[in-house]
């Protein structure tokens, strides 16, 4: 991840950025829409469980040749 002098290699940043932007491109979804989805999900989940915005993580991820929506929603016990 880190090359000489501890500098983060620019190609690693590029790879991360490309993976993220392509996951949205492929799903024909804008990052803004994703925030809307997250907010709505939170509303729905909140009806059943105590929910807190900061702990929720919703993202798209490439798994093999398919795209999956990953929602990481910790339930407060």
């Amino acid at each position, binding site marked *: 991840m880190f090359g000489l002098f501890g500098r983060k*290699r*620019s190609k690693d940043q*590029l*790879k991360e*950025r*490309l*993976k993220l932007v392509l996951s949205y*491109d*492929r799903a024909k979804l804008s990052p803004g829409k994703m925030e809307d989805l997250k907010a709505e999900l939170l509303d729905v989940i909140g009806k059943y469980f105590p929910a807190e915005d900061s702990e929720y993580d919703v993202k798209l991820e490439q798994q093999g*040749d398919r795209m999956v929506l990953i929602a990481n929603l910790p339930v407060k016990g």
Partner: protein
Amino acid sequence: MNAKAIVVTSGKGGVGKTTTTANVGAALAKQGEKVVVIDTDVGLRNLDVVMGLEGRVIYDLIDYFEGRCKLKQAVIRDKRVDKLHLIAASQTKDKSALSEERMRETIRLLLEEEGFDRVLIDSPAGIESGFQTAASAATGALVVVNPEVSSVRDADRIIGLLESREIDEVRLIINRMRPEMVRRGDMLEVDDVLEILGVKLIGIVPEDERILVSTNVGSPASLDDANKAGTEFRNIARRVRGEDVPYPSMEAETSGFLLGFRRLFGGR
């Protein structure tokens, strides 16, 4: 590749589509295939000058589509290589004669009536009708990509469009690799690009001034066996023909990578 009609495309402009078409086409012909390369970039034709055949264009693709000449008259024979041929794009702006149906019919005639073994279709940049027409007759594709952000993003879009056209033989050519930058970690490695785009590789072409020099004089580098810059294009042609040609080593952090590229550079 099984595909006899192969579109060369990239989405983004300026990544080396036309140079690739000229060099791979010339190499295929040298290897014994009867080849025609077709420029479909109507209004911005360039394949003729890259191949050094600009002085020989009498009729072009649009002339044929609009009935001003026969198909045979639009096919220009390259005198340097026996089996190499070109159909030029029109330099006028009228694209209305380009239709997917005419394109498919033309490719069929070239393969079935005119006896060509392979047709390479040089697509215009973009994802609009020019690209769609170029892709419509193809059963295979060479996607040219540079290892940088906008080219990779556009290639991903193009690959999606090719797949939706059910073009199943999609192969990637990574053009303008700079081993020194890869070694520093400032350029995507071959494996990074393959992981991101998820298609099969068919060529890794290092950046080399001699490619531009050969283009300046209108003589594709792959035509001259002594020109080491043409080696990878000759290897791509061999892979298209189904040969298993090894790639230069791809490990960025080891000397093997550089050695692999040095081999490509002719041991320099």
